[in-house]
């Protein structure tokens, strides 16, 4: 019974995550350099950095290759994660399960680096 409840909860969380719409966060600078897209975003400085005299906010730059750029640019605030996965699978000719794993992991990385924000409903428990 407990296993069934756990599976149902995982399922609803997965559906909620795939239906979510990621959006690029405002960037300070975005430029192409050596075939890579370099995106600079403003982030809060870490506690230790502030204690050592750094400013409250710092600029951080991330480089995205061709495939990273493709996913990043698809996060336009209109398409769901599911649609981005489908588009990536079609463009790169990889299978849907592989595209889903790669794209969702990459979106998670972009969220952690504050390059994306995502709005989603809290999944039902």
């Amino acid at each position: 019974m407990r296993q069934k409840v756990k599976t149902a909860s995982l399922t609803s969380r997965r559906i909620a995550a795939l239906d979510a719409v990621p959006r690029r966060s405002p960037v300070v600078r975005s430029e192409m350099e050596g075939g890579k897209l370099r995106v600079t975003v403003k982030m809060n400085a870490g506690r230790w950095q502030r204690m050592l005299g750094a400013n409250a906010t710092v600029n951080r730059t991330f480089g995205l290759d061709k495939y990273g750029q493709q996913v990043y640019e698809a996060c336009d605030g209109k398409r769901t994660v599911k649609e981005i996965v489908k588009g990536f699978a079609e463009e790169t000719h990889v299978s849907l399960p592989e595209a889903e794993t790669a794209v969702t992991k990459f979106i998670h990385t972009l969220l952690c680096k504050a390059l994306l924000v995502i709005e989603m409903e809290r999944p039902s428990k």
Partner: protein
Amino acid sequence: MTALVSENLESYTGVRLAPLAWAGWQLHIPSDWRPLKIYGTPEKGWMMVGDAYCACFSIHWQQSNGSVSDGKQWATDRLKRLGLFPDSSPPSAERFSACAWARDVQSEEEKKTTHWFGYSESADLLLGLKVNGALPEEHRDSMKHDVLSSLQTSPADDETIWTLYGLSLVSPPNFKLVERHLYMGDVALRFQKNRQESLMLRQVYPGGLALGRRNFERWLASYPFSEHRRMRASSVTISSWQHPNFEDLVGLRRRGCKRLGIPLGGIMPRWNHALAVQDQTLDRLLIAEHSASVMPDENICENAIAQMNRPLRESL
């Protein structure tokens, strides 16, 4: 060779279908299903297939090696062992020497399991397929109309098709699968014939990303399986190569000799012919490496490269 189940088909429920082939059998699955676990050898093994939520079915195979005289009796006996009686008109009956099934067997509350058993004399293969009884109704329909009805085998003495994760490889006759390397974006299978000859087929994708990290030569040098012999630099010749029939298959050809370390270098050297090409249509890096005790036949690698992802390339 039996024609590989084609790409771009739609399922009974309107979902896109993808081919899945392993160890001599082939079928269609909805494109969001994937192999979850593969166990055993081409002689005897099983594969579990499912989607992101649960296992949908498992398929067991075993080479009969002439142990089955009456296929119909064997299939019926398998059902009887499970305490089941065979139902009429099993799917794919026209493509098997004998088969039997028991559909929607209520094993537990809310569970309806389907069992299918078949024997193919030309493929020398016994197959058993069990559908997860806890599947939702639409998945169970898809199993009956798409998966079970598309099941077929290829003759035992013919080329064998290996298809999963949207890629396909074809091994020449009499080459047996001995090792596999199945990772996301990097799939390799190693086949052996008479312990003297070995063929490694590999696909790395996306090809642009793979070649951005290593060039063709370094990809050829990185063998995905462990081996005692090493390529001797003095024996290596590398030349550019393009497939005569497919202009989009361009890359390198390497010929050379792999030997054991000093002082055993003179013992059983392996002559090697390898091709690494970029499939510019599908953006994949395709590698085929053939080793033998004498200089291997170059056509084997060339054919293996030409046959990789053929149904997918033809459907584009």
